[in-house]
């Protein structure tokens, strides 16, 4: 087999991009285990016998409610994720499968949602949450994230649902399967690769978001992990050990979820359905 120059170029580009993407994470990981002096003296060096320390982690666990923040973030992310995927898939199914009045208008309206950044509405969202008595609750965050994630989810899932052969639904209808059952027993399993894609795309920004936790739930023990990290970044002194340690801890669950979903990203499940 000969290797074409085009393929080499593609690989070089991909490798460079991988380095670019993984570099910062790698830096966070190695520096989280180094003394403050070593972080500044040799930021690119690996921790060795002299510079090795876990003081950052100790301080994170001692000085902050890290477990609670972590739990808050996890709750917000997972609940948002489940709602986005579930509502998104149902809406996508309805918009692609059923022809009804206002179908196109609704699709367009949702497409606009992808283009307009939700942060533009921060002030009115805050005002609304105050009126609803939802400030400093995780519910406020979940609501906002669901709204933010839905348009793209519906678009992606709709595309995938359209690719499911129409005959499958018709076959199920002839079999006497209810529309709900068709959705849950046939459509959902078949779009699981798309769901994994949507989950990954939705999860990362939600987990990493600082903006909405800061304005909607900054207190009352409802802080998310990104807010928790902030407390180590001071105006005058920044506890880099603690910041890097908490960031390291914050990466872990995203990574775990990513690995979980990525199993489905690659393979298509519809093989063998038709023809």
């Amino acid at each position, binding site marked *: 087999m000969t290797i074409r120059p085009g393929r080499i170029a593609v690989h070089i580009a991909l490798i460079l991009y991988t380095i670019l993407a993984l570099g910062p994470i790698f830096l966070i990981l190695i520096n989280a285990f180094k003394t403050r002096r070593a972080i500044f003296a040799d930021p690119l060096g690996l921790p060795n016998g002299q510079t090795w320390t876990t003081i950052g982690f100790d301080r994170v666990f001692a000085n902050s409610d890290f477990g609670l923040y972590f739990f808050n973030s996890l709750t917000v992310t997972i609940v948002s994720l489940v709602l986005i995927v579930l509502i998104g898939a149902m809406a996508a199914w309805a918009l692609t499968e059923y022809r009804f009045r206002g179908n196109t208008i609704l699709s367009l309206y949702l497409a606009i949602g992808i283009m307009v950044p939700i942060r533009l509405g921060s002030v009115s969202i805050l005002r609304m949450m105050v009126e609803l008595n939802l400030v400093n609750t995780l519910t406020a965050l979940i609501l906002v994230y669901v709204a933010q994630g839905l348009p793209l989810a519906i678009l992606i899932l709709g595309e995938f649902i359209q690719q499911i*052969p129409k*005959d*499958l639904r*018709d*076959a*199920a*209808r*002839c*079999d*006497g*399967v*209810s529309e709900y*059952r068709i959705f849950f*027993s*046939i459509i959902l*399993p*078949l779009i699981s690769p798309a769901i994994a894609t949507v989950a990954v795309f939705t999860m990362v920004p939600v987990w990493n978001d600082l903006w909405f936790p800061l304005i909607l739930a900054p207190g009352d023990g409802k802080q998310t992990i990104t807010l928790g990290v902030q407390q180590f970044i001071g105006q005058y002194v920044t506890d880099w050990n603690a910041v890097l340690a908490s960031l390291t801890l914050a990466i872990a669950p995203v990574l775990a979820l990513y690995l979980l979903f990525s199993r489905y990203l690659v393979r298509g*499940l*519809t*093989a*063998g*359905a*038709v*023809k």
Partner: protein
Amino acid sequence: MADVSLHGVAKSFGATEILRDINLSVDDGEFVVFVGPSGCGKSTLLRIIAGLESVSGGEIRIDKKRVNELPPADRKIAMVFQSYALYPHMNVYKNMAFGLKFAKTHKAEADRRVRQAAEILKLTPLLDRKPRELSGGQRQRVAIGRAIVRNPSVFLFDEPLSNLDAALRVNTRLEIAKLHRDLGATMIYVTHDQVEAMTLASKIVVLNQGRIEQVGAPLELYRSPRNLFVAGFIGSPRMNFIKGQVLRAEGSNVTIGFAGTEATLDVRPGSVNPGDHVTVGIRPEHMEAGGAESTSLRGTIDAVEQLGESSYVYMRLASGDDVIVRAPGETEATPGGTYTAHVPTRALHIFDAAGLSVLPDQS
């Protein structure tokens, strides 16, 4: 078991008329084949009977009950799709049992039915496989099995063989015919392949542009096509059409001139008058039958195809008409030479200017 009848069924998508005024009755236990070119509405008609499409007008009755408003599941039908439409994430057993779960069938009964269907279709060793692990023929059998377990009154097949290769198609065709004999159920089958239609059907419905052109037993359609469309559609290679003119007419006895020759035969009285333009149809396999009352057609040979058991001679008549002759056995004709075909008068089909057959009804 049940009969199916359609009364004035019409369907349009927006301004486009797909089907208009379809009237048809399918008797209990009959094997009816809808055949026609693509886009003629045959699949739509099947989907209307299944309940997957609504009608714009008319009435559908299954087992003498109006079913227009019933969902597919309540019509006692089962459908086999062209694409098989197997649930890809379920194994063969679950594919067949899936529908029964919602029909409130008792679990043991469902299991018995699935195993029985698997037995009939020789699927027993494959019950644990996923559809992607099956060959095309096996997938098709699973799709048929899924229909059988529902124990339907009417089976609907939507071009079930068109994704199979030629050898498998013949096999599966025979299996479907056998299935029909064994189950005795009413079956409606859609295809664009006239060989399938001829071999399987007890009754063929020829559709064209949303209308029924003719309904009849396979040989009836072959022997006395009602119009040019059916004449051209049934039979392979297709019927030769030659322009002609009525020379003389005395009651039902007319003489028609075509391709430099003439033939005298009986038509429906008063259906044509002297001077009328007509189309003369001759099936390629009748071009060489000869016999006592026959007409000779001479032309230059364009091409010759030898198939061993027969030969196709493509020739151009002096009148400019291109015709195909199917001569039995091998032929010595070569391209560029001349060829004379001997057509018996009784093999002629005569169509008037509107394309309708003017031959007397043979039934």
